């Protein structure tokens, strides 16, 4: 295992620090939209595409497996299955055929949450295509989060908002399910509406009510005003000091976070 980690580090160095290719020991060939590229082994699909010279303007986001922006469709050599993944979370394999999905053109109805009853009729009102589900399970097979998405849609069909919420909670809205569904269901929008409706029916915990009361009573007003009146430099210094006191960041890292804090997506 340590050997593999060293190899990963080694391979990643070429991309992250621009080391000379002559130091890379392991290479694979991938095909990006049909064209072959030789790339360092053990890097992610996203890194491989950038190594090959692509620059992402869509189809990339948090680079940490959370935002769902980098949906990828690929095949591997000798396998007839079309596979799906997040480009930032999946390592290249020799002979991979890759394409990035920049956007899923799914229909997204607008609704007023306060005006809709929290039950299955609302889901079917905005997403009647849910009733077209034939239980083929293609959505589940496509899900890079390994969610039981078909079960979630089936729960939506029978109006079980709690079950939909439980089953779809880790959805990152990459859209791969919707792209593969033969019934043209937009699973990630359906389940999001279900989670919103379900969330609305939950009783608010006391600690939240207490905190809201504190805020409304002005408990944090002075502190808030103090922060709002600070300059950028003062804020950065305050952040560094506080992080150091908490032991969360070493001084070297603190400046890096500030510089890259905007994210790359």
């Amino acid at each position, binding site marked *: 295992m340590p050997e593999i980690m060293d190899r990963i580090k080694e391979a990643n160095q070429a991309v992250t620090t621009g080391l000379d290719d002559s130091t890379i020991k392991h290479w694979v060939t991938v095909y990006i939209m049909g064209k072959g590229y030789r790339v360092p082994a053990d890097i992610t699909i996203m890194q491989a595409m950038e190594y090959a010279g692509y620059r992402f303007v869509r189809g990339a986001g948090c680079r940490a497996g959370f935002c769902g922006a980098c949906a990828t469709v690929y095949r591997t050599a000798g396998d007839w299955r079309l596979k799906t993944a997040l480009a930032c979370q999946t390592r290249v394999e020799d002979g991979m055929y890759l394409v990035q999905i920049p956007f899923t053109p799914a229909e997204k109805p607008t609704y007023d949450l306060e005006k809709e009853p929290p039950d*299955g*009729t609302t889901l079917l009102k905005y997403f009647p295509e849910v009733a077209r589900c*034939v*239980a*083929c*399970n293609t959505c*589940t097979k496509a899900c890079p989060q390994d969610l039981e998405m078909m079960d979630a849609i089936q729960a939506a069909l*029978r*109006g*079980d908002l709690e079950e939909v919420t439980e089953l779809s909670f880790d959805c990152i809205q990459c859209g791969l399910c919707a792209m593969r569904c033969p019934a043209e269901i937009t699973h990630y929008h359906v389940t999001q509406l279900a989670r919103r409706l379900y969330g609305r029916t939950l009783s608010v915990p006391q600690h939240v009510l207490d905190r809201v009361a504190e805020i409304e009573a002005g408990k944090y007003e002075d502190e808030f005003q103090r922060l709002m009146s600070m300059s950028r430099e003062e804020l950065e210094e305050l952040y560094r000091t506080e992080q150091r006191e908490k032991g969360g960041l070493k001084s070297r890292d603190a400046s890096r976070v500030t510089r890259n804090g905007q994210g790359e997506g």
Partner: protein
Amino acid sequence: MPDDTRHASRVTRHDTLSPITHHSSRIPYFPGCALKDQARAFERSAQLAMQALGWELFELPRWNCCGTVYSLASDDLMRHLGPVRNLVRAQELGEGRLVALCAMCYNTLARSSRFVEADPERLRRINAFMDEEPDYRGGVEVVHLLQLLRDEVGYGEIEAKVARSLEGVRVAPYYGCMLLRPREVGIDDPDSPEVMEELLSSLGAEPVEFPQRAECCGAYQAVSRPEIARGRVQEIVSSARRAGAELIATSCPLCQFNLETHQNVTHHSSPIAVVYFTQLLALALGVPGDQLGFELLRLDPRPVLSKKELV
């Protein structure tokens, strides 16, 4: 492939695949979507009734929609994934039977089960597609609750457990299509069914015979051509009314919906409430009326039942 021949021998029914249900009085049931939403009264009353009879219906785990409308195209295998997946769930439990309550679910599941067992190639292709599931081997028997009541619980047993006779209540048993047709999956003789009449009689009620009891209610035409459903329902309900019915009993949430919403109510005819047969069964077995979801129906049967002091 050796796999194919194995499938071929496995799906032959009635030889090696006798029901392997573990507990004779504990049996998995398939609720279906309607019973979790529009027809909650049906599920609730069925469970309470079976409990009163000493049986336990337990919900099939991880079930999905039955498929709703059975596909008549012989090559439309995709439409059989839903029903067959449910049969896989029962098979995974080691159960040889699956009880359906909704007549539509019963029909689709039972026909789909026969469809895949009739041709090993169909089943092989469906299993190959569902490669993430264990193969369906065939042999799970789909039964309707009315069959279970007739063939296994028995009318005598039911009659003996009646705590509150429905004496004097005139009920029109409405079968519709899905319990009786096609003949291969019909739970009774499609031309002269008697299972619901017998059940109602064993509860002390008076089953009303009416000629329209097995006519179609208009089914899903209610969505796109409501006038068709309206015409059918008005014939059915007036036929029941002429025969003297005070209530109509059904086992299909779609029939129930159509019969309730498309009745022609004039100043000389008051509406007839449409109940699930399980509501009457549970009531007769002594389950308190306020647990049976009568308030969830669009037409309230309680005025009729309270006249006989049943609720």
